[in-house]
């Protein structure tokens, strides 16, 4: 069991997401940076479906109420285990009563605290993920919360690597994306504006999506669009012309035209961006997207 001494800015429980009920309007949620969540689980010998704590910008202070093996992966935070400074990405053992404190953040936006056996909160519709908008799966962690740990599949720590298989953003990132069919609503010039633009992640960005500040994207065709499914990574364009990048807690369907979709691998990179960071979009092909995904899986396999 662990106890939340200080919750930090926005700390939630996340597993791989609430899949399978989107036809009933249930959002997927899950980690903003799925790759770091998975690496954290692998490092402590967990199945990647185990729940971790997702820490955002300002981390929490956690007290271990049992002898515990844990690791923090993802964004670079100063970490203190009691009086000792510990590195991100290194598996640690904490005795009962020791405290883990997150300090100053130097890169990335989110980190994942994995505990051997996983965070054991009840399943809601098949997932332990917290969806802040609908309240499914729980809420933001608060000081005083106690969470059970250790019921999940857990084996011997298997990963030898200690990092994440992508460059952690330091102030911004270029995200590879695929062109969307709704692009017919935007002429070549507008698509060119999008591809050349440098956007800034707006202050009112959250786990549902990032509001991007930068060049306006004008639609050339304002025929009605019917709402349909909105995967993570979708870049949609509301009438204001300021694009929105949909993230983990997005709604299941949406009616704004889409110009692009960020590829799976780079969705994790996007998850490491904070308000004020820059984003550039670079179009690629579907085969490049799948190759990038395979490369990440191969790296993780080599670390095992």
């Amino acid at each position, binding site marked *: 069991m662990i106890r939340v001494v200080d919750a930090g800015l926005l700390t939630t429980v996340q597993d791989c997401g609430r*899949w*399978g*009920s*989107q*036809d*009933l*309007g*249930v*959002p*997927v949620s899950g980690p903003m940076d799925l790759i770091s969540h998975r690496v954290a689980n692998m490092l402590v010998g967990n199945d990647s479906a185990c729940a971790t704590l997702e820490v955002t910008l300002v981390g929490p202070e956690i007290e271990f109420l049992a002898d515990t093996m844990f690791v923090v992966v993802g964004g670079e935070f100063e970490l203190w285990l009691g009086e000792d400074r510990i590195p991100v990405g290194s598996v640690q053992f904490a005795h009962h009563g020791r405290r883990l404190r997150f300090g100053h953040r130097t890169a990335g936006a989110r980190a994942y605290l994995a505990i051997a056996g996983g965070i054991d909160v009840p399943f*809601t*519709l098949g997932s332990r993920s917290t969806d802040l*908008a*609908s*309240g*499914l799966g729980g809420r933001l962690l608060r000081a005083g919360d106690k969470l059970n740990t250790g019921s999940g599949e857990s084996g011997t720590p298997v990963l030898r690597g200690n990092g994440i298989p992508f460059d952690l953003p330091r102030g911004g990132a270029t995200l590879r994306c*695929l062109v*969307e*069919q709704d692009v017919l609503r935007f002429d070549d010039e507008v698509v060119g504006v999008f591809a050349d633009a440098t956007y800034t992640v707006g202050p009112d960005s959250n786990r549902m999506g990032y509001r991007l500040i930068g060049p306006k994207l004008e639609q050339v065709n304002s*025929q*009605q*669009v*019917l*709402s*349909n*499914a909105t*995967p993570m*990574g*979708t870049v949609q364009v509301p009438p204001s012309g300021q694009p929105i990048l949909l993230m983990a807690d997005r*709604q*299941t*369907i*949406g009616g704004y035209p889409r110009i692009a*979709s*960020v*590829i*799976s691998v780079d969705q994790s990179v996007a998850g490491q961006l904070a308000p004020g960071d820059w984003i550039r979009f670079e179009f690629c092909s*579907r085969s490049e*997207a*799948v190759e990038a*995904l*395979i490369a990440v*899986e191969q790296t993780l396999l080599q670390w095992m």
Partner: protein
Amino acid sequence: MTSCRQSGWRISMVGDSAIRIDFGALIDPQVSVRVLALAAAVRETGPDGVRDIVPSYSAATIYIDPLLADVDGLWKLLERLAAEPVSRQTSSRDVLVPVHYGGSDGPDLEAVASFANCSVDQVIHLHTAPRYRVYMVGFLPGFPYLGPVDSRIAIPRLANPRLAVPAGSVGIAGVQTGIYPTVAPGGWCLIGRTSVKAFDQDRDPPSLFRPGDFVRFEAVAGSTR
């Protein structure tokens, strides 16, 4: 990557992790029946690597794990299913929804009456008359998109959405009508409120409404007060 037929459907990749088949941007009962039958057939076939199937007005979006799914095989399956006549009838139920119209429960009822140039009683009559089809469930967990609304009361969305629409609110947005299962921001014009619980995470299935169901509204005694 797209493919289409003169019969009016189009298959395309959505990002690297979803495939969509779209039967044309239409809110139409026949199209909806086709979409739901196809979604059910894909679910039944159960191809590897499919993570979620999301029907909407005129399209079904199939979420895949790109490393597990056979995209070409799935593509061919969709082409085959789309070319077949709709033979199956997906299961559907009729749900009666009692509504208290007007007053603080329906703050936009008078505005709808002005829009339609009729009395609030006539608005209630026009809203309770049809047997609405559930075209899709989404936006919020359990939120049913119902239609079509009588064109006389098909009022557009509010210019300034409310920050907090109360749970159970019944609203109109153009030819669509729907029910807010939980408190949420929203731009639909609110005409009444129901005590029916559209979503309950402890119920199986959690959503009262499923795509393909039918809904009738009924004015409860004391409406408009």
